[in-house]
């Protein structure tokens, strides 16, 4: 007579234990799924970024005239675009790996190109290289391209592809997608870092002028506050400076 209730109790205990085991199993599966999710997302993410920074460059969205007067690269002196008679000089300090510079170019490149084409401004470009080796390689490539006579379109391409790490191959390929020809002279200029000293001299010149971050702009030698600047605002500033 007393065996039945005890059997029922044993049965109940077995059920409870089974449920606990099922819950534990469920938890283990959940933990495994969560861990797998995190590992896959992070691992895949790193792989994805490696691909993004190592792939070939693409053409800049707004095509600039490819040919420009070949620039002379002189230590501590900027690359200059635009008419020598332009009334206003705009000095531009940028690093090709600086995210704010890429944003700046996306927003303001149109204004600067128009002002330059209409003869209002002359642009002095100081490509700084303080972020990483890619910055320095890109600044050197920029000098090579300016020297070879396709500076402006190469410049636009560098910022349009600013997520790339800027290996030699990418810098050479960028000449092709910018509509120019990667001549042996240009290729050698890139791979041998022909203008490494010039890049360094630009960094020093920028430091001496008190440039602490990029992008930094000077309009006829006067610092322009980039924070809160709009394309229309910059256009107005240029027009006012041109009338003085």
């Amino acid at each position, binding site marked *: 007579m007393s065996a039945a209730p005890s059997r029922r109790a044993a049965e109940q205990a077995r059920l409870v234990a089974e449920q606990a085991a099922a819950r534990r199993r469920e938890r283990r599966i*959940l933990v495994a799924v969560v861990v797998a*999710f*995190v590992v896959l997302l*992070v691992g895949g*993410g790193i792989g994805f970024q490696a691909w993004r920074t190592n792939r070939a460059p693409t053409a800049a969205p707004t095509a600039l005239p490819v040919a420009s007067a070949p620039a002379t690269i002189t230590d501590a002196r900027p690359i200059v675009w635009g008419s020598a008679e332009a009334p206003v000089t705009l000095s531009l300090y940028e690093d090709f790996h600086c*995210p704010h510079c890429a944003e700046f170019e996306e927003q303001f490149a149109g204004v600067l190109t128009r002002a330059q084409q209409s003869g209002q401004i002359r642009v002095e470009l100081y490509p700084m290289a303080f972020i990483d080796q890619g910055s320095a390689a890109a600044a050197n490539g920029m000098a090579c391209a300016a020297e070879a006579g396709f500076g402006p379109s190469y410049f636009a391409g560098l910022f349009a592809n600013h997520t790339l790490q800027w290996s030699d191959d990418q810098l050479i390929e960028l000449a092709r997608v910018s509509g120019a020809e990667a001549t042996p002279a240009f290729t050698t200029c890139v791979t041998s870092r022909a203008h490494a000293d010039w890049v360094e001299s630009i960094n020093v010149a920028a430091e001496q002028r008190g440039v*602490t*971050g990029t992008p930094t702009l000077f309009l006829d030698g006067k610092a322009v506050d980039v924070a809160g600047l709009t394309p229309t605002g910059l256009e107005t500033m240029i027009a006012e400076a041109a009338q003085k």
Partner: protein
Amino acid sequence: MTSVDPHNPPPAASRDTGMAAVAPWISTAARLILGGVLLVAGALKVVDPQASVAAVRAYELLPTGLETVVGWGLPFVEVALGLLLLTGLGTRPAAAAAGLLMLVFIAGVASAAARGLSIDCGCFGGGGKVAPDQTAYGQEIVRDVGLLLLAGWLVARPQSRLSLEPAR
């Protein structure tokens, strides 16, 4: 239990019952805030891998190879933790990891401030050097301490409403 005399405050036990009812909702709010911030912060950085590496580099704390891996990987860690916290899966470990991350961020920003660097924390994309008068170390640390407190609450009370996590 059903009728409480307003002139006679309820005993401690009943106040605990009130807390027990509210706490899961506080945990839900903590999950959504912490998870939301992490998801947004991560997503903004995923967009620009080069900028993310540059932001890490600006702290001048890691060797070159590690800077790249952290710059690329950290945003995805944030996205992953953000998604876990928003859905409520693995809340306690995710909150513990998020709290650890906040400690690392606070230490990083504090060390940048102590060494006199002038950088943007790069918390929500961007980053890198800024003009000395444009640093915001104080705000950055206060924000991270706030998020650290939320993470601490979730480690203590991971049970929350509107969560996909099966009840224990």
